[in-house]
């Protein structure tokens, strides 16, 4: 699904990613670990081009999205992202946070169909044989109502339907991160990228977020997760990747990765964190 080929990123003169190649298949749960400053966040942010790669390719469903000519917005809708600091939209209520992007995208599609139809109508004035209009099955109101319903379902799933109309500043950290996860889900993405989703949480809230992620994993969601939660990696990942100095030094299923690490730097790292 995602084929990363020789990915490079430098900031000014500083090389942060030095040729990363990895393949992510549908349903994969890949956990990325590594020391602080090793380039984990940069790697994740290059995958949806929040940072423009300075070299290499990211083939997502057959398209090289690292190419600056592609319309990245369309591809980002297929890739959710969850941030360490949640980044819920502060000026929107919880339900608006979830609905904003899907409603916007569908309304945009509706507008574009209407524009096309208008063009057909104008041209039909000069045609003998009238061309049929594109069918329109929805309205602005229906889009909103449907997405509201869908967003309520997502909130029910995380047990926060009573928080639909409050602003994010009133939520706890764990609640914020769960809303952020369902906000990503609302776009029906093919893959979700997580950048240390539990690092900013109080310890008692880590569990509720990890539980939601585990549930997604069970449903077959493709996930790429940067985390320091080794227990979670062991339990949920089907592949664990160790990044240091912008390179993948080891990539293995969790049993092998934790049970029999080969790279000396990984051995050293594990001895410190486990």
């Amino acid at each position: 699904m995602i084929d990363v080929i020789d990915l490079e990123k430098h900031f000014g003169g500083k090389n942060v990613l030095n040729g990363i190649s990895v393949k992510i298949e549908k349903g994969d749960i890949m956990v990325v670990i590594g020391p602080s400053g090793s380039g984990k966040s940069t790697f994740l942010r290059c995958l949806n081009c929040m940072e423009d790669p300075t070299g290499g390719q990211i083939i997502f469903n057959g398209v090289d999205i690292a190419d600056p000519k592609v319309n990245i917005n369309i591809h980002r809708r297929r890739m959710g992202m969850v941030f360490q600091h949640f980044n819920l939209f502060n000026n929107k209520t919880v339900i608006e946070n979830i609905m904003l992007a899907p409603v916007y995208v569908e309304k945009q599609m509706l507008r574009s169909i209407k524009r096309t139809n208008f063009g057909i109508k104008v041209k039909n004035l000069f045609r003998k044989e009238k061309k049929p209009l594109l069918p329109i099955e929805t309205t602005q109101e229906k889009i909103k109502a449907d997405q509201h319903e869908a967003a309520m379902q997502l909130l029910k799933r995380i047990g926060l339907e009573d928080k639909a109309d409050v602003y994010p500043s009133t939520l706890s950290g764990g609640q914020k991160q769960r809303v952020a996860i369902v906000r990503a889900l609302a776009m029906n993405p093919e893959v979700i990228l997580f950048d240390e989703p539990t690092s900013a949480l109080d310890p008692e809230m880590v569990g509720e977020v990890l539980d939601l992620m585990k549930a997604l994993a069970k449903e077959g969601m493709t996930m790429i997760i940067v985390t320091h939660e080794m227990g979670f990696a062991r339990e949920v990942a089907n592949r664990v990747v160790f990044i240091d100095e912008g390179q993948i030094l080891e990539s293995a299923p969790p049993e092998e990765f934790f049970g029999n690490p080969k790279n000396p730097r990984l051995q050293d790292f594990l001895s410190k964190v486990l």
Partner: protein
Amino acid sequence: MGGFGAKVDKFIEMFITYKGYVKVLEGLRNTLLIAVLGLLIGIVIGTLIATVRVVPKYKRLPRVLNAICSFYVALFRGTPIVVQLLIAYYVLLPLFGGHMTGVEVAILVFGLNSGAYASEIMRGGILSVDGGQLEAGRAVGLSFSTSMIKIVIPQAVKNILPTLGNEFIALIKDTSVVSFVGATDLYVAFNYIGSNSYEFMVPYIVMALIYIVLVLLISLGIKLMERSLRKSDRRH
């Protein structure tokens, strides 16, 4: 020279019997029109400039736009508004053969001028919004401009509302120079009353009072707006 009471009587006579209030209402309308429309134009221009100024400048287009904006801001902040008014009305307007009243020119010049100031205010506002907000917008697939319009700018405006209010108050007071281009504002109206009654003391005091009341009303309006916008910070 009569006493103060006589002066007040004279003013009231001019104001009511000789229809001075018509002039004053016209002046008040123009003052508000110039300040309100000027501020709105200023906010639009200021937001555009501020956005250009916060965009990363790796590529050529943002750099060129940025240079244009810097020039614009330097031009309008570097010259007094009276000079801008005079040049617009007596130099540029005849040069381009335009037909505009003094009030229309004043609205335009005040808009362009406050755009330069508002851009600096707005830039501060945009920078005060956590960068994660824009990132989250981009991450769900919204374009840069949509993310700015729907997410960043509303939060920026909330943060700078008091400063924008001060800009509005400054604009209201600055409008007292539009008589230079033949527009009737409060100053012209009260000057008219004064010169027809040969008595300036009371008209000028009343003029000052009207400005004070206007400014107090605006301050109150801003406080109310701030309160209603702050609901997203409040705990439920």
